[in-house]
């Protein structure tokens, strides 16, 4: 029994150390973003020789949103003879096919790819098929609910002028922020994640993440990797690590803001975060050893890469820590325990209120010029518990995938937009 208690205490100390590590990381990011030297993308490069770009839009039953993204892409300030738009209709059974065909008849550079019949469904499969027909060396991907501003394609593509750049990532901004409490909280979350986290990682030459949408990559590179791995749900994180392991870099373009539709219901958000966690943890199992062995990454890139890979596993470890604390409580160990239990939980909230400490979200909102919405910060306490639970379920899913070699199925995020244009 004594050994068990000892081990439980050791685990609590381990957890505390780990959370402290994340706090230091996020404080450095926040400090760097608010007053440190900032690194720009290649947005100010003047080059008339823009490369041919293929824009992919994976779609599954996207009739509510399809025309918004297509309209926005049609209006892009990019030579139309140097671009093609490939909306990938992935087994839709609503009006998506009709909408795409309608656009294709009006614009010659819109070339829908219809995936029907027995072909397996899912974003990685869809992207792999689109890669086979794409003419461009540069591929830019948008999710169907995104609405890119006019100049964005150029802002993203110009970065590939640097041969070391393997992928580029823009900033995601929710379009439906005022809709309800959840969308307001998600707006703050996105703000913390992009305005501070991604930009700071780019500033510090760490590992800014390619997010799978509002971003692009080199086709030759992904073909060298053998295409997208259909077993992995987080194909974006998978690609990020493959790019860094292959000695390429990801550029983060904070200026390239793209509007997205954030989930408007908690159940949709729960499924989304569980899927992200599952996919991210699959990538953890896949890349942790190659990352440690890699000679292409600096020491700090490895440290950041490890912390990034583990970020969706930490909530599960914290859930175990809570059970650990409960056992210690009923074992009569509270007497020596309150100080570091309190510390641990305070840190937990600091670090994982929203996968970002409150001060990081505060600074992001401050930089964005947001004021009243910042007053929602205390509510992240409840989101913390919500995230803790669903992220832990996602980790268990990933672990089960690993052990049983189960193949993950792709689930689309529900759309909420009221399409009144039909």
């Amino acid at each position: 029994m004594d050994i068990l208690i000892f081990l439980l205490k050791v685990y609590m100390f381990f957890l505390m150390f780990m959370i402290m590590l994340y706090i230091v990381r996020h404080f450095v990011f926040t400090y760097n973003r608010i007053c440190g030297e900032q690194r720009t993308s290649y947005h100010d490069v003047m080059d008339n020789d823009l490369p041919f770009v293929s824009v992919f839009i994976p779609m599954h039953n996207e009739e509510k949103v399809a025309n918004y993204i297509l309209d926005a892409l049609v209006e892009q300030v990019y030579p139309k003879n140097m671009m093609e738009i490939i909306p990938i209709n992935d087994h839709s059974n609503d009006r998506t096919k009709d909408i795409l065909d309608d656009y294709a008849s009006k614009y010659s550079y819109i070339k829908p790819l219809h995936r029907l019949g027995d072909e397996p469904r899912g974003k990685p499969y869809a992207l792999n098929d689109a890669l086979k027909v794409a003419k461009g060396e540069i591929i830019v991907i948008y999710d169907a609910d995104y609405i890119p501003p006019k100049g964005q394609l150029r802002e993203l593509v110009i970065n590939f002028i640097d041969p070391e750049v393997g992928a580029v990532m823009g900033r995601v901004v929710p379009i439906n922020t005022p809709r309800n409490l959840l969308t307001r909280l998600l707006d703050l979350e996105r703000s913390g994640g992009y305005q501070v986290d991604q930009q700071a990682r780019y500033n510090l030459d760490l590992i800014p993440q390619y997010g799978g949408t509002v971003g692009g990559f080199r086709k030759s590179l992904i073909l060298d990797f053998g295409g997208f791995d259909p077993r992995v749900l987080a194909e974006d994180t998978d690609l990020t690590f493959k790019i860094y392991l292959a000695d390429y870099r990801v550029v983060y373009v904070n200026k390239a803001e793209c509007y997205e539709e954030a989930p408007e219901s908690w159940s949709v958000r729960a499924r989304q975060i569980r899927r992200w966690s599952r996919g991210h943890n699959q990538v953890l199992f896949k890349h942790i050893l190659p990352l440690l062995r890699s000679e292409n990454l600096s020491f700090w890139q490895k440290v950041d890469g490890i912390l990034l890979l583990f970020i969706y596993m930490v909530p599960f470890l914290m859930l175990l820590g809570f059970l650990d604390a409960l056992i210690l409580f009923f074992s009569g160990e509270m007497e020596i325990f309150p100080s570091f239990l309190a510390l641990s939980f305070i840190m937990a909230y600091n670090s994982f209120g929203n996968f970002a400490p409150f001060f990081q979200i505060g600074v992001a909102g401050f930089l964005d010029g947001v004021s009243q919405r910042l007053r929602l910060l205390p509510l992240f306490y409840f989101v913390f518990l919500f995230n803790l639970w669903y992220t832990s379920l996602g980790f268990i899913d990933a672990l089960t995938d690993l052990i049983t070699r189960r193949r993950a199925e792709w689930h689309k995020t529900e759309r909420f937009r009221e399409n009144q244009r039909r």
Partner: protein
Amino acid sequence: MKSMGLGVGYSRSFERRVIHYARHGRILNVNKLLVFFQIVICFIISLVFILNIESISHVFVSHAIYLIKDVSVENKEITNSIRVFYIKYDGRFPSIYEVIIYIFSSVVGIFLAKRIKFISQHIIIYIQFLFFILLCSSMFFYFIPYKFPYDSTTFSVLYILTQVLIFSFIPAVLGLSLALFNVSLTLFLTNFIVIGIALIYSFVFGVVRYVVMLFILNKFSYIWMANLFFNLGPLLDMIYISGVYSIYISIISDRYRKFTVYWRWIY
């Protein structure tokens, strides 16, 4: 404003009528010396709180005693030279009937909570979390009540220790996070006022919570002790600490975004 083909589903009303300055490339002209001083001073304040645990506990308890009758103030040596003051107020063990009712109600609570449609899911998880701890505690008292390792005195002492720890955390946590906004001496001084407000709030809230907790242990039994500790303990403090932070930041964000003198742009 041209709609850019967005249709009426989203009319772009989310856009500001006037965008003062680009947000993507701006940074704050922070005075790094003030940042350093604030962090150092706040950590010194934190240290002072920890080193003065005896006198702080005395002040804390002497205020709490006004809110509760028929109790005595006692002290206990926690290390060789440091004593901590606390209120002695007897709690009680739950009866077997109470335990059974709690087991039943917590199981029902866990399952029924999910069916409540008018409360959003993140709050439901919190409610389930409360019931889960209550269930664990009830099971403990059902099977091995004689092994319950605490009494109200232990809890009372530990509460005081935790509370002092929270007092010491407030300058450290807020000091670190507010230091990042130090663009002027005025803001530097205001930051300390905000930390002071948070400390005063924490003191008042801590006193009231202390008395309420002792009352619950006395009237509703030790079965609630785990919930008091895990749910109404330090996590609850973090809500108002971040609350104070968020209100303050929202005010200065509104005020400072218009003054270009405090900002630099990288583009």
